[in-house]
C-alpha cells in the first residue's frame, strides 16, 4: 500500500446523506475480476443526471469528497472503495461511515475522515463559495484545511499508523505466525471443518 501523509486536491461536495454502497457502485458493476477499472461504476445511476455534482466542472476533478452522514452503509463490497480510488478520490469526509466501508477504505488506502456534521456543513459552504478550491488533508496532524478554515478529523490510531507507514496488514499478521500456530493447537476438536 502507498504511504499517505498529506493530500491536497479539489473538494467535491456531495450533499446527500445515507449514501449506501449500492449507490456508490451498483451491483451490475461488480462483475470484474480485476482490482482496477471500477471508475465507470462510481455513482453510476446518479451520473445519468447532468446536474449531478460529478458532472459539473470543476467538481468532476475533485479528489476530496465531502459527503453527508452515514456514507458507505450497506453491502460489504470493497468495489465501492476501489471505484472512488479509480475515479481519483483519495479522501472521503463524512460525519459517520458504514463500518465495513470504513474498514475497506483503510485496507485499500482511501482515507475515511470522520468530522462533526457541523464541520461538514462548514466545508460544503466553504467549497461552494469558490468551486475548485483545494483542500489539504494532513493525516499526521489530523486536520483538513480549506483556505482559512481548519477542521479536525478523527481516524483510529491503528489505521492512521498503517496509512502513514504504508503497511500491508497480511505482512503484519504473518509476523505473528507462531501465535497463530499456538492458537490452533488449543482449538477444541468439536469445531467444524468443511472438508469431507
Amino acid at each position, binding site marked *: 500500500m502507498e504511504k499517505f501523509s498529506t493530500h491536497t486536491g479539489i473538494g467535491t461536495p456531495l450533499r*446527500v*446523506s*445515507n449514501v*449506501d454502497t*449500492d*449507490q456508490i457502485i*451498483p*451491483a*451490475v458493476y*461488480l*462483475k*470484474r*475480476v*480485476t*482490482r482496477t477499472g471500477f471508475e465507470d461504476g462510481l455513482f453510476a*445511476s446518479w451520473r445519468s443526471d447532468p446536474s449531478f455534482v460529478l458532472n459539473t466542472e470543476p467538481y468532476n476533478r475533485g479528489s476530496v469528497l465531502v459527503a453527508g*452522514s*452515514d456514507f458507505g*452503509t*450497506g*453491502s*460489504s*463490497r*470493497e*468495489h465501492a*472503495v476501489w471505484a472512488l480510488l479509480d475515479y481519483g478520490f483519495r479522501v472521503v469526509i463524512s460525519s*459517520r461511515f*458504514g*463500518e*465495513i466501508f470504513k*474498514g*475497506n477504505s483503510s*485496507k*485499500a488506502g482511501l482515507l475515511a475522515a470522520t468530522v462533526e456534521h457541523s464541520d461538514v456543513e462548514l466545508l460544503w459552504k466553504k467549497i461552494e463559495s469558490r468551486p475548485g478550491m483545494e483542500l489539504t488533508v494532513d493525516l499526521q496532524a489530523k486536520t483538513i484545511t480549506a483556505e482559512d478554515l481548519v477542521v479536525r478529523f478523527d481516524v*483510529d*490510531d*491503528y489505521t492512521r*499508523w498503517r496509512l502513514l507507514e504504508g503497511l500491508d*496488514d*497480511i505482512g*503484519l*499478521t*504473518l509476523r*505473528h*505466525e507462531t*501465535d*497463530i500456530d499456538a*492458537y*490452533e493447537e488449543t*482449538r*477444541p*476438536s*468439536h*469445531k*467444524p*471443518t*468443511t*472438508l*469431507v
Partner: protein
Amino acid sequence: MGRTLAEKVWDQHVVRHGEGQEPDLLYIDLHLVHEVTSPQAFDGLRLAGRPVRRPDLTIATEDHNVPTVDILLPIADETSATQVATLRRNVEEFGVRLFSIGDLNQGIVHMIGPELGLTQPGTTVVCGDSHTSTHGAFGALAFGIGTSEVEHVLATQTLPLRPFKTMAIEIDGELRPGVTAKDVILAVIAQIGTGGGAGYVLEYRGEAVRTMSMEARMTMCNMSIEAGARAGMVAPDETTFAYLKGRPHAPEGAEWDAAEQVWRELRTDDDAEFDTVVHIDAAALTPYVTWGTNPGQGLPLGESVPDPAEMDDDDAAATRKALKYMALEPGTRLRDVAVDVVFLGSCTNARIEDLRAAAGVIRGKHVADSVRMLVVPGSMKVKAQAEEEGLDEVFTEAGAEWRSAGCSMCLGMNPDQLEPGQRCASTSNRNFEGRQGKGGRTHLVSPLVAAATAVRGTLSSPEDLTPSVLTLA
C-alpha cells in the same frame, strides 16, 4: 463484572492481544466464499505466493451471479460467466470445497452454512458479504468483510479487529399471530436508524426471541447490518441444539456432548452490562413495510406515506428524495400502494418456513393479474424440501414462478431484475435505489405480506384477504 455473549466469543478467539497501535488478532473458525468478492483476494495470494492457510475451514458457493432458471445451461451474461469460472479455477488451485450451480448443496452462502451444520454456537464466521450477520442466530460472532480482509483470512485464518460496543435489543412480550421476525427487525431498524447500530454488536434477547425458531432468528440477525451493526447475535438454547443435531457437519457422539457443554455457557452473564439497551414491545407490533429507500424508512402497514412537511429539515430532505424516487405521495395509505412484482426470496426470507408461510396464504388463491410473483428458494435443499411438501404446486397453481436457488432479485447482478419504474414487494433486505434493478422501487415486507400482496395487488397482510387468512405457527 460479567461478560456479554459477544464478549465471551471474542475472548475465546484472541490469538494475540495487540500492542501499542495494533488491535487484537482474532481467529476465524469458518470462512464462507462466493464468486463476487473473492477473485481479487485469490489474485493477491497468487501474487504473494501464499497458500490458503486452512482450506478445511473455508467453503465456497455460487450465488450472486447465477440465473435461477435453466441453471444447467451456460451462464449467458459473459461477465457473470467469467466471475463464476474464475471462482471455479481459484478453488481448484487452492483446494477449497465448492458447491457449484446444479449441486444439491448449492445455494445462497448464508443458507448453506446453517444447513450443513457448519455454523455453530461460539464460532467466528466471516464472508465477503454483509449479510454474514445471519449466522449470529446460532450464537456465533459473524460479520461481513471486504475483499482485502477475505485475502487476509485466506492467508492467515485471522483478522485484526478493533473492539466493539454491545447493544441489547430486548424484545419483550409475545408477537401477535401474523407478525414475524421480519416485522420485528424492520421495527428495530425504524427505531434505531440505519446508523444506530454502528460500532455495536447487537444481541437479540427477551421472551419473543426465545420462542422464535432458528429460521426466524436468522431473519432477524440477517438484517442487523441494515441498522449499521456488523453483527447480531442470539444466545444458543434448546432450539439451537435441536436445529443442529444430525446435520452433516455437526459434532457427533462424545464430541457433541463436549460441544453442548461449551455452548450452554454461551450467554450473557446476569451481571454483565451492555453499552446500550433498546426495548421493543413485541405485542404492540403489526406487519411492517418500508416506504422509502433505506431499511429504516419503514412503518406499520396500517399507516400512510409520511409527510416531509411534518419533519425537521434533515429528515424532510431525505424523505422528499426518497418519496420522489419511490413515486409516492405523502398521505397515501400504504395499503393502497399497488405493486408490479412480488419477490419471495433472499438470504433474509427464503427458508422452508418462509415458503410454508407464504404458501399457506396463497393456497387456492391466485396472484393478481397485474402482478408477477417470483418464488426463489434460498438453497437447492430448501427447493427439494418444498417440492417434497408440494409447495411448488401451490405457488405455480396460483400463477407464481417457481425457480432455483440464488440471490436472484435481491440485487441486480443476475438476470432476475426489476425494470425501471417497476414497484416490488420484496422479502429481501435492502430497498436502496436501484438495488433490484436500475430504476426499480422496493418495499421490504415479510413472506406473509408478500403473499397477501401478490393476491390483492396492493400492499396487504393476510387479514385483508377474503376469507381472511391468518395462519400458522
